[in-house]
């Protein structure tokens, strides 16, 4: 990944942007993957945590003098707070974890499709609340003026941290116990595994990382709108996890880069490229069609994802599997 960053630096600002974006998505995909890869539950709800994280960071850092105008309902200490951005990111991610803890305490009792739908419901609920809680979220309209501190290296730092967290979790006994529940719930229970507890632990950790992804997203764009954290983002991040390999952390990272890269390549094609003086450009809207077709092809030929169940080791402490 560092290598990709270097290439991006050499490749000029355009590539830097793409690398930054890919790494922001990496943080989110890794966050989702911590839960999904180990529990086997497809989460339609993780974008909730990106939403919570992004807004929580905005509450602490947004909009310079305009904070009271956008979010008059904030408590005084937040209106006055001058939290440093990184501390704010940490606090925001922790808030996402708290939301996960509270909601997960109930939802993690569920399994399979019921859990997926409950997670989707969580997203609906939180989104609807944020959309209508005008006094602290500006409702449906955007917040603008988040400090723009996310450049490629910040994103790289966050992505690395996310990967380390995921690695440590995966290698821990918690990760192993959760994978057992993924393979066979009844047998896991017979082996003394408290499924609810293991899921909840992973859920809280993954919410923390996904929340950090949301924070990055907000501070990369400088604006926040609730409806960005919705189905499109859910699909994109899920697609990254699955295209990479849904049971593997490496898969999440590869998926984030592959999907972002693919999308940007097609976008560049659509905007036109010069090939030996001949300018080729695809018609508007062709990018989306091509992206869908290529994703389908990848899935068809590699249904287990690009890396399958394999795990590459970066930082040691690799997963002990086969």
């Amino acid at each position, binding site marked *: 990944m560092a290598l990709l960053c270097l290439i991006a630096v050499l490749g000029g600002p355009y590539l830097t942007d793409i690398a930054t974006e890919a790494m922001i998505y990496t943080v989110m995909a890794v966050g989702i993957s911590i839960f999904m890869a180990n529990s086997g539950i497809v989460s339609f709800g993780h974008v909730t945590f990106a939403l919570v994280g992004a807004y929580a960071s905005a509450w602490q850092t947004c909009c310079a003098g305009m904070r009271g105008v956008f979010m008059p309902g904030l408590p005084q200490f937040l209106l006055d707070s001058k939290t440093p951005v990184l501390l704010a990111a940490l606090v925001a991610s922790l808030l996402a974890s708290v939301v996960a803890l509270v909601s997960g305490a109930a939802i993690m009792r569920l399994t399979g499709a019921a859990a997926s739908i409950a997670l989707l419901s969580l997203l609906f609920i939180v989104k609807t609340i944020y959309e209508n809680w005008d006094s602290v979220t500006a409702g449906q309209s955007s917040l603008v003026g988040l400090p723009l501190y996310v450049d490629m290296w910040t994103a790289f730092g966050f992505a690395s941290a996310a990967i380390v967290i995921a690695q440590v979790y995966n290698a*821990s*006994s918690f990760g*192993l*116990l959760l*994978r*057992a529940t993924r*393979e*066979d719930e*009844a*047998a*896991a*229970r*017979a*082996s*003394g*595994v*408290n*499924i609810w507890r293991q899921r909840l632990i992973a859920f809280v950790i993954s919410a923390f990382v996904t929340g950090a992804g949301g924070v990055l997203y907000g501070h990369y764009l400088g604006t926040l709108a609730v409806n960005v954290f919705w189905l499109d983002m859910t699909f994109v991040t899920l697609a990254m996890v699955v295209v990479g390999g849904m*049971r593997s952390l490496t898969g999440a990272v590869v998926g984030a880069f592959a999907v972002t890269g693919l999308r940007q390549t097609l976008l560049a094609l659509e905007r036109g490229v010069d090939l030996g003086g001949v300018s080729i450009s695809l018609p508007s809207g062709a990018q989306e069609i091509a992206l869908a077709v290529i994703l389908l092809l990848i899935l068809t030929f590699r249904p287990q994802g690009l890396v399958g*169940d394999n795990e590459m080791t970066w930082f040691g402490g690799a997963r*002990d*599997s*086969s």
Partner: protein
Amino acid sequence: MSELNTEAISVQFQGLRALDSVDLSLKEGEILGLLGPNGAGKTTLVNVISGFQRPTEGTVRVDGKSVGGLTPDALARCGVARTFQSVRLFRRLSVLENVEISALCHAKSRNEARSTARRALEFVGLGPVARRLAGELPYADERRVGIARALALRPRFLLLDEPAAGMTDSECRDLVEIVRQLPQSFGCAVLLIEHNIGLVMEVCNRLHVLNGGRTLADGPVETVRNNPDVIAAYLGGA
């Protein structure tokens, strides 16, 4: 002296009485054979004891204390371990990990769990395949992993549901050795469900026979074996 009892356990599935007032006791150090024709309710009884099935009536007691409300995982931590008739391995995890998971239940560290798991695997003779994926094993080996997994829980009561299914005669003989050693080596009582009568006769101290959800006979091996009801309902000419 620890003991596991079921008291008047009944289980009703819509219109079907799978268990009807079954009293069974399993005492420290013994190997109890649970026999009965197909559909007699043996697996259902194991499900009840291990917390997977809530009985319609009756209680399960461990050392005299009711464990009725406990979940399967809590029971497992209290020393009631089981294997499954349909094996149910964690197929995409390695054999070692399969066993390590239950070892983690009592282990203080990851390393301790791993060495407990290794010992359990050696005990059932699967040391050499510890690193393979559980889903790739042949059928009979899967059953042995299941036993190792239950053993790694350091159980006081071990419920084995047809451990010998799919094993050849010689493998059965190895299994006899393994099961025989359990009470001494692991200090646990064993409840053994098995249709391989030879094996049952060799290892069990006592037999409990179910038929149609009711207790048909309960007592020392020789008495039960010669019980005409048991012969008619279950053993046939065998």
